[in-house]
Structure formats: structure tokens, C-alpha cells
């Protein structure tokens, strides 16, 4: 194989599994080290730069970083990255003075943001300091979008949301809340230089054809609309027996909210097997902890209505059968249908995009699924002035994805407003520097702890179920936060190898606790080379680092898979051929252009 080009920023970026998996590529190990050092404000600001809503995400993120965490391949559980982010947010000092300070000198350009959710707010955050005049339109009473209307307050306290939305609006954003934009054409006719659409996926799916749907309508609600009703205090109670249809996180929010509004017997009923449910495992656990029963493999047949009143629902029992391609089919088991009593039903079976307010004759193309055609890199639609992001761009995702979209759309808008080619996107900002402090000393905590993942403490159920605003998770206290932070393997401290200094003494190979390093003859074929290593490198999602040819004609091959970044290879290297170099990678944002 050819020697690995470690100067390509994507190589080391990929080694930092958490950061690589994060849609916004937040420098996770960097802020975790700050948390361990009790530098919460700095940790918060690293997050704020990258993901805009550290306090919100530290409670509600879908955490794509955690399944990717290397720790999960070395022992059982990944680092509790998400909840560590919250530790930074909970314990930070004054951060506002570290943020850009409005007013900013105007650059004469005006931007309209339709929708006030995480995508639009990220665009606002990136563009306002550059002198753009930003007009944000949202139908709700305050900014935050689905973070406000759909995430229940017991998971995300309103103060936390208000604070972080406030940081952005304080940058001099012109807000027009309680304003539903009815026509994109009208917006375009005003003198905006660009328009960003971040209207989310606002329509909850229904079951219109299911028998009894119309008759029972008074007691059947669409999940996200119902959650919004609760958030905006239009709804404050629910029947004692509740069925929630659906297996995603919205279903979990619906059932847990029901428990707080008077639901005593709350049942989640889902078509798929329990393990296939879309809800995050921890959301399911939290729901079950609140005495919510989950019935899997039940397909809804009908709403049962007696004398104009809903009495419950009928379900067919199914089992999942997978074909050779892994495709799932739900086949009836033949068991008798199941009737479940209910006073009210919440339907949380998914969300869809909906753009009734966009005229179809503006030169903005829609595809066969009635979704706008949006460029995956630039987020530009087929109308050059109109950009999309968040759930509005490619369908329902999550907050962190919306933030990532917002950053990229802001880059595009900034390039576009300067008359530049939005396809010529600047490279990420990277730094690589040695952590060497002395002969055997590094500027990071290289020892690897064996602590198991710490559990985030929760308030007593007897208290939290009484008040829908009472936050359930208490967050790590600083000492536990420190211990959890120390579980991080510092994957951004890279094992940088210089073949010209190596004397092939084998010291690194001998000391490596996880047998990552092998000195061997090279192979043309990567598959063959992977098999030759001390422990064959079977996890092909992880790269192998191949050195230049060494003096004896062999090469050094390092399997990145389970490297602990403990620095022992570099400590035992007599010639500093190995060095522990910290790698910093930051996605280019509009302000860096």
C-alpha cells in the first residue's frame, strides 16, 4: 500500500470518531479536556462556536457521537459526551462577553430567515456579526422552533432554551414572531439579498383511513400538535387512559408528557419490534421508568367509538420476519386481535414536510415527493436566492443536523452575497501541534482510566410526574463530570509517525497495550496487509496508517481501530519517531471567509 497521507486533514479527522460522526463536527475531546480542567466557560464557548446550543444539545441531542465513540469499542459504554456538554453549560461563567458584540457595522445586505428554529438561528448567528441585516419570521410566540414546541420542558427547561436563543437574537436580529409567512413570492419581492428557509417538518402524520378516526376525532390528537399545545399552554390535561401510537422520540415525549397531565395508564403501541423502535434507547428507558408500558408488534386496526365517545383501539398482532437482504416484513401471527382501552389517543408516527406557502411558479423546483430540490453541499435551491436548511431541506433529522446545515448555508449565503462561486468552498481550519512537555510528559492526561460510564442522576419520579416543567435529569455534578470526562481517550491527540527517524527497535510494538502497531513487509492489497497485522484489522470502517518504507524495507502499520491514545508508543520511542500531536479541526464558517 501507499504511505498514508496524514497531512490530508480528513485522515486525522476520521480518527477523532466522535467529532467525525457529529454533523457539526464539534471538537469533542477538546471541550471534554476543558471540562476536566474545570474550564467550563471555555468548554461552553468551544461548543457554542460549533453547535450554537450547548445547553439545549447537552440535554436533548440525538448524540450520533456516542455510538461512534472509540471507548465503546474498547469497553462496553461510550463516554457520556452529551451530558458532559451539559456540565459545561450548567457551570459556565459569563459567556456573553466572549460572544460577538452587537451592533455590527452594516455590510448593506439583507437576509430573510423563514422559521425560527435551530437552522435559521445558526444562520443568523453566523451572518449577523458580518454586518448582515437579518429579518427572522416565525409563527410562534418566541424563537426556537421545534425545540420550543416539541421538546417537553421536563427534558429542556424553558430558561435554558430562552438563554441560548437570546444570545443569538441579541446579535441584533430583527424578529417578527407570530407571523406566518404565507407567500415566498411576497418575501422575494422585497429587497432581500437572500432568503433562508428553515421551516422544519411541521406536519405530523395521521391515520385518516383507519376506521373510527372521524368519529373519535375529539379524543384523537396529532402528537407534535398536541405537544405544541402543551408547550404553549393551550392544553393542560389528558384522560386517564392514553394510547400513544408510534415508536420514535416524539412518541416518548408524548407518553411522558401524558403522565404529567393526568394520564395514569399510558401505553405506547408500536408496529415494529422493540429493538427496531426509532426512539433512542435512553428515551425508551426513561419512559419505562415512568411506568409507561410499551406494546411492540401491534398494528393499529381501528379506533373503537361507542356513543360518540372513544373507548379504545383494536390492534393486530404481528411478528417481524427479515428476508436475506435484511428487509423487514410484519406478518400477522394469527393470534386474536387485541383491544386496548383508551380515553385519548396521540398519534406520533412521523412528520412530513409541507410547503403550502411556496408558490410553484417561482423557479424553485420540487421533486416527485414534493420536496424542494436542494443542493447537498451548498443548500441552495434551484432559485439562486433561496437556501434551505434543517428538516426543511431533506426531511426530519435532528437539532444538531439543523445546526450543521445552518453553518453551511451561511457560508453559501455569504459567498453568494459577495458575488462569489458558492461551490468553491474553503477548506476546514486545522492545527497539528506536539503535546510534548518533557521526555516522557504530555500536555494531556494520557493515562487511561477503567471507570465505567457514570449514570446521570434523575429527580424522584414522585416529584417530576407532578409538574411537566420539572426537569427530570439533574445533570452530573462537577466531581462526577470530572470522572466521566477522564474516560475520554483523547482521540484528537494523534500518534504521528515519522518513518525517517525510526530505528525499528520494536519498542512501540512491544508496549502498545492494544496491539495496534505492527512492523511488517508491505502488501499491494489492503485486505492482505490488514490480515498480516499482530491482531488482524477486521474493522474496515477504521483506517490503517501505513508508513513510508523503513531502512529494512518493512513498513510500520498502525490499526487505528482500538488505539487508546495513551502515548506509550511515543514514550517508549528512543528517537521521537512517534509523537503525540494534538489535532484541531474546525469546519469553516462564514466568519472565516
Amino acid at each position, binding site marked *: 500500500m501507499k504511505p498514508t497521507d496524514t497531512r490530508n486533514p480528513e485522515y486525522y479527522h476520521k480518527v477523532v470518531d466522535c467529532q467525525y460522526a457529529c454533523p457539526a463536527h464539534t471538537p469533542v475531546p477538546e471541550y471534554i479536556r476543558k471540562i476536566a480542567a474545570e474550564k467550563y466557560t471555555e468548554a461552553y464557548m468551544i461548543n457554542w462556536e460549533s453547535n450554537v446550543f450547548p445547553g439545549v444539545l447537552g440535554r436533548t441531542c440525538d448524540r450520533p457521537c456516542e455510538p461512534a465513540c472509540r471507548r465503546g469499542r474498547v469497553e462496553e459504554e461510550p463516554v457520556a459526551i452529551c451530558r458532559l456538554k451539559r456540565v459545561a453549560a450548567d457551570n459556565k461563567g459569563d459567556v456573553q462577553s466572549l460572544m460577538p458584540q452587537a451592533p455590527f457595522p452594516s455590510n448593506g445586505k439583507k437576509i430573510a430567515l423563514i422559521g425560527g428554529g435551530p437552522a435559521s438561528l445558526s444562520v443568523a448567528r453566523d451572518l449577523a456579526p458580518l454586518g448582515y441585516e437579518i429579518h427572522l419570521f416565525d409563527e410562534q410566540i418566541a424563537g426556537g422552533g421545534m425545540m420550543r414546541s416539541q421538546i417537553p420542558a421536563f427534558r429542556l427547561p424553558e430558561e435554558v432554551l430562552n438563554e441560548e436563543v437570546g444570545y443569538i437574537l441579541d446579535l441584533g436580529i430583527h424578529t417578527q414572531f407570530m407571523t406566518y409567512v404565507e407567500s415566498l413570492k411576497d418575501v422575494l419581492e422585497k429587497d432581500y439579498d437572500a432568503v433562508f428557509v428553515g421551516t422544519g417538518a411541521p406536519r405530523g402524520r395521521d391515520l385518516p383511513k383507519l376506521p373510527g378516526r372521524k368519529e373519535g376525532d375529539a379524543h384523537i390528537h396529532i402528537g407534535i400538535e398536541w405537544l405544541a399545545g402543551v408547550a404553549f399552554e393551550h392544553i393542560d390535561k389528558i384522560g386517564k387512559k392514553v394510547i400513544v401510537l408510534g415508536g420514535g422520540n416524539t412518541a416518548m415525549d408524548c407518553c411522558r408528557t401524558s403522565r404529567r397531565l393526568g394520564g395514569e395508564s399510558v401505553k405506547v403501541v408500536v408496529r415494529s419490534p422493540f429493538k427496531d423502535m426509532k426512539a433512542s434507547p435512553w428515551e425508551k428507558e426513561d419512559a419505562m421508568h415512568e411506568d409507561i408500558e410499551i406494546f411492540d408488534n401491534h398494528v393499529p386496526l381501528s379506533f373503537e367509538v361507542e356513543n360518540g365517545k372513544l373507548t379504545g383501539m383494536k390492534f393486530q398482532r404481528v411478528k417481524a420476519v427479515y428476508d436475506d437482504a435484511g428487509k423487514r416484513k410484519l406478518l400477522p401471527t394469527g393470534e386474536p386481535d387485541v383491544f386496548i382501552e383508551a380515553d385519548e389517543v396521540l398519534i406520533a408516527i412521523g412528520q412530513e414536510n409541507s410547503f403550502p406557502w411556496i408558490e410553484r411558479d417561482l423557479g424553485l423546483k420540487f421533486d416527485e415527493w414534493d420536496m424542494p430540490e436542494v443542493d447537498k453541499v451548498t443548500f441552495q435551491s434551484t432559485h439562486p436566492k433561496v437556501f434551505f436548511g434543517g428538516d426543511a431541506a431533506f426531511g426530519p433529522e435532528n437539532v444538531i443536523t439543523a445546526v450543521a446545515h445552518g453553518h453551511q448555508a451561511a457560508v453559501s449565503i455569504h459567498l453568494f452575497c459577495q458575488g462569489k462561486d458558492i461551490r468553491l468552498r474553503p477548506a476546514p481550519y486545522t492545527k497539528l501541534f506536539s503535546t510534548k512537555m518533557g521526555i516522557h510528559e504530555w500536555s494531556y492526561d494520557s493515562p*487511561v482510566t477503567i471507570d465505567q460510564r457514570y449514570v446521570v442522576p434523575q429527580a424522584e419520579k414522585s416529584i417530576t410526574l407532578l409538574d411537566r416543567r420539572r426537569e427530570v435529569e439533574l445533570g452530573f455534578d462537577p466531581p462526577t463530570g470530572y470522572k466521566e470526562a477522564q474516560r475520554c481517550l483523547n482521540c484528537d491527540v494523534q500518534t504521528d509517525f515519522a518513518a525517517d527517524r525510526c530505528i525499528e527497535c520494536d*519498542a512501540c510494538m512491544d508496549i502498545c497495550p492494544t*496491539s495496534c502497531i505492527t512492523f511488517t*513487509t508491505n502488501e499491494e492489497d489492503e485486505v492482505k496487509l490488514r490480515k498480516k497485522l499482530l491482531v488482524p484489522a*477486521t474493522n474496515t470502517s477504521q483506517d490503517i496508517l501505513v508508513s513510508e518504507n523503513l531502512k529494512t524495507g518493512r513498513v510500520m502499520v498502525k490499526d487505528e481501530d*482500538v488505539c*487508546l491514545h495513551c502515548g*506509550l508508543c511515543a514514550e517508549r520511542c528512543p528517537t521521537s519517531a512517534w509523537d503525540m500531536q494534538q489535532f484541531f479541526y474546525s469546519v469553516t464558517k462564514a466568519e472565516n471567509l
Partner: protein
Amino acid sequence: MTYLKPLFRHPKLPKNKLGYTLKEYEGTISTLCAGCGHDSISATIVQACFELSIEPHLVAKISGIGCSSKTPAYFLGNSHGFNSVHGRMPSVATGANLANKNMVYFGVSGDGDTASIGMGQFVHAIRRNLNMVYIVMNNGCYGLTKGQDSATADVGSASKSGHINPFQPVDLASLAVELGATFVAQSFSGDKQQLVPLIKAAIQHKGLAFINVMSPCVTFNNNPGSTKSYDYVREHMQATGTFDFVPERKAIQAQYEAGTDTSVALHDGTLMRLHKLAPEWNPEDRLSAVNAMQQARARNEILTGLLYINTEFGDLHDILDTSDTAFNTLDEATLSPGKKALEAINASLR
């Protein structure tokens, strides 16, 4: 500096017949200089014992004084160990061996510990054919006292300070053959492909198996002009043969003239298959071994691999007809049969 090795290991680390991974054979983190050849030898011993599925509690590591003699702390952490007096490793090994013949004995020594202060002990351990593996980690200098020339430093070899060694070296492998050692090998710390099978064979050999391992002192003797540096040893290594079950050597074999294959049956019935690179050399013929070593020396080569083996000659236990049962499992009456028994013995000698 890290003193504790992280406890995590590769989750797919292979297991041996006992269900152990390499972890069960490791020791603590080495405190020797980074890049020390001795650490590679330690890792090789770990690998060999793992591959042979030796139960760690059935191994004793005995050493003298010096950098080399510190290494037993860095391998086989679950085995027995005795760090003895300078040059006196063979005495302690002899005592332990006589008390319990059912263990694997590793004697670990250095060029100072063996070729200077312990020369007398070395010679007699060989003469008695004590059943043990005797490894000399040979770096040609006194690393622990800042790198003075040792007795194995080659004449003309330059030290780090530029001093040229004026004395003839003690050639430990030749001496061992001369003294009648029954297994003599030479190797290089930077060549695990050769050293692992050699150590495995040495463990299986009944009698004293002597391995002289060139082990560069990265701090005091890895300079240009030294004949014990990584570069010099790599350039001047000439193998007597390779073990066929080591596939990695095949590429290197091609560089040599065609050799012949031969097998040597070890005492326990295992077969050591050799691919000879020097056709005139016969590992079971002492004359031929001495000849090969002398010729290599004349060519300024370091002859590595198995040099000589004799599976016929009995070890010390055979010679003395010692107890098969370890002393620690004999009861007091058997160990100390009393006055009557002594009188009977004395009477038989009158």
C-alpha cells in the same frame, strides 16, 4: 512518565490453549531506556510462553544484576522470580531447579553479569547441563553505569564517547559450545521472527539452552563505529538457518544460496524443522558448529539462529538421578528421614 500500562487490550486478542491472552504473560511497564533491545527480548519471551501455552505459575525467572537482570520484572508478571546477586544467577537457578524439576527456568543475564563477574558460574552451569533457558542480553557495554566497554565488546568497536576498545571480546556462544552446552543459539533483539521460535525450542530443550542475544544499548552503544548497534547488527547478521514455520522469513531466504532442510527431534518429541542456509553446517555436529562460527567471525559476520544442539546428553537431573517430586510437595518424613537413615547411608560407605 507512565508507570501503569492501561488495562484495556485489543478485544480480539487471540487466546492460547489455556484460554489466556498475551496479557496474562505480560509484566509491568519497563523502566529501561526507551528503545532498549532488552524490552524486545522481554516481549519475545512473553510471545513464546503464550504460544506454548505455558502456565505462568510454572515458570521461574532468575537474574543477577544489570539492565538485563531488571527485565524479569517486565515479563511474565504471574510467574516466580528471584533477582539475585551479581553474576550469581546460575547458583540460584541450580538450587531452585534441584528443588523442583517440573518448572521452566529462565536465567536472564547480561554481558557483564555473565562474561565478567559471573563467568565462573556460567561455565559450571553449562558443564552440569542444568535444565534451563540461559539468555544473555548482550549489548557490549555496562549500560547501568553509563556505558563502559564490557568483556563482550569487539576489539576496535567505538563507544559513544569515541573510545576504541583495545581488548579481544569474549565470544559467549563459542565458549558455550566449547564447554559442551547442549543447545547454543545466537540472535538479535530486533528479529522476533527468529527469536520467538528459538526461545520456544530452548524451553522445550532438556538441558541448558544458551541464547546469546545481541541487544543494542540505545543510550550508550548505538553509535556509528559500535559493533553492537541496531544498524551494525542488522548489516552483519548472517543466519545459519530459518525455522520453516515462520513464513515471514521467506522473502529474506531468497537472498541466500539454496540450503537444505533438516529436522531435529527434541526430548519431548516435538520436532524442530530447520531450513539450513549454510549447507556445510550440521547443527548436531560440534565441529561443524565451531567451524561455522569461526568462519563467520573471520568474515566479520554475526552468525545467528541455532548453532549447535545435542539431544543425547542428559541433564543434571538425569546425571544425579534426582527426585521427580518437587521438594515442596514432599512431607517432612521423606525430606528428613532421620538419624537411622543417615546411619544407614554412612554404614554403606564404610
